[in-house]
């Protein structure tokens, strides 16, 4: 028994010199308790697992902090463009008003979302609003179709509304956003999709922490004529003289297309801004969480380390006192 104690003693000193336990550590990364049974009933408390976790959490914290900085710089770049484009849609709303509750047969919902993830809940909000508008505009003889911009909305909408999707466009932000690109996009949509009313769903950028889901409605020229004749909000559109071109219809057609491309440009920019802002706040809360987790793990690590030292001391002392007495 004394020999066993001596052997235990010998083994006991080794971990004090080198921090790594020499016996094979049957470490289970899931289990938070790190007690191990060696071959002769020797007990090691391993701090290796905690240390591994601390290393990976610290890396995650560094990565999310870096992502936040990147998102902040991208936001600064897009924000100035967005604020400059805000004057673009106001004249159209001043002229044609805003009729989201217009009653039409064919509505097309254009959902704008991001291609990359890790940007908080903005894409889910856009998809929920698009589905709400779809429900709002469904009924006998009415149909609603989707045009999707961005991978995230595609992934969500393709699951249950696959047959209602007309067009999917991705990789919008490969080159910096500009009006030419958006007008080509608008042209594609106008060519391939028939509509009475287009409803663009996007997140409007109010501030770095606030993004408001918004829907902009654009009516086709026939519906504009119909609403103007029936009076109501567009009633005084008839008072406007239309100059140039052969017919009034042609001008109204050009107007609708121009309005679509302008409103689309603003919507795409606002959504890009909101995406960067949401990513900033998501990465910020993620790095804060990682910091909290690191603090907790450090406490556990210290407790484990102190417990193992205490255990070793107890065993040494009891071994030594067994030798004497």
């Amino acid at each position, binding site marked *: 028994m004394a020999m066993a104690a001596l052997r235990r003693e010998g083994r006991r000193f080794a971990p004090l010199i080198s921090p790594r336990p020499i016996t094979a550590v049957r470490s289970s990364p899931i289990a938070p308790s790190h007690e191990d049974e060696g071959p002769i009933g020797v007990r090691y408390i391993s701090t290796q697992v905690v240390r591994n976790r601390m290393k990976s959490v610290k890396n995650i914290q560094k990565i999310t902090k870096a992502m936040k900085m990147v998102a902040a710089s991208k936001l600064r770049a897009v924000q100035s463009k967005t604020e400059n484009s805000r004057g673009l849609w*106001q004249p159209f709303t001043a*002229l044609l008003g*805003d009729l989201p*509750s217009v009653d039409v047969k064919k509505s097309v919902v254009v959902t704008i979302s991001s291609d990359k993830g890790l940007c908080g809940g903005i894409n889910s909000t856009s998809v929920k609003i698009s589905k709400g*508008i779809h429900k709002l505009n469904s009924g006998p003889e009415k149909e609603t179709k989707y045009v999707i911009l961005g991978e995230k909305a595609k992934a969500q909408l393709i699951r249950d509304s696959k047959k209602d999707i007309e067009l999917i466009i991705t990789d919008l932000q490969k080159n910096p956003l500009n009006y030419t690109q958006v007008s080509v996009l608008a042209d594609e949509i106008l060519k391939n999709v028939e509509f009475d009313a287009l409803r663009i769903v996007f997140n*409007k950028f109010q501030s770095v922490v606030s993004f408001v889901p918004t*829907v*902009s409605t654009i009516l086709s020229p026939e519906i504009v004529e119909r609403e103007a004749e029936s009076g109501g909000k567009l009633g005084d559109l008839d008072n406007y*003289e239309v100059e*140039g071109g052969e017919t009034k219809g042609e001008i109204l057609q050009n107007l609708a297309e121009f309005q679509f491309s302008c409103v689309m440009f603003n919507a795409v920019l606002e959504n890009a801004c909101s995406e960067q802002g949401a990513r900033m706040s998501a990465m910020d809360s993620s790095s804060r969480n990682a910091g909290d987790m690191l603090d907790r793990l450090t406490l556990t690590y210290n407790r484990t380390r102190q417990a193992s030292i205490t255990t070793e001391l107890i065993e040494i002392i009891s071994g030594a006192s067994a030798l004497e007495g």
Partner: protein
Amino acid sequence: MLRRAMGLLARPVAAARARSFSTDLPAAQTADSTFVEAWNKVMPNMDPPKTPLSFMQPRPATPSSIPSKLTVNFVLPYASELTTKEVDMVIVPATTGQMGVLPGHVATITELKPGVLSVHKGNETTKYFISSGFVFIHANSFADIIAVEAVPLDQIDANLVQKGLAEFTQKLSSATTDLEKAEAQIGIDVHSALNSALTG
């Protein structure tokens, strides 16, 4: 049930906000009430999305007498060149020719062709060359000019204009499909307008 109550509370709050903004203006709406109601019926658990009406700067009503100045908004996709600037007159290049707009002009919607836009205020005139766009003249002497590109005339290089004109004329003569012909024709129109803007 609580959410419906909150929805009901939200509308008077929105109306109160509208009232606090409009000082001498008629009641400007900040939300389309039929839309909000229809939304709350279909999706009671979610707030309705905002519409451009809530972000709109309200416009004054038509005054009874003709105002002395014309208020001009000149916007481009990349910038708002002029926002509610009070001027005496603007001359816009409409498709039917140069059109002068004075305060009290009849309400009009006009399409623009590439040409020179000049803004007259007092004795000074600012000239821009714009690619096409639209101009809306409202009854309350507000003019909204929306163009895709605009450059002040002194930033146009005459040599490049000549080169461009020659290039597009050559493209027109060698064009085969209708699309190419149309594109070349547009190029010629823009460049000859640039040319006459520089000279005239």
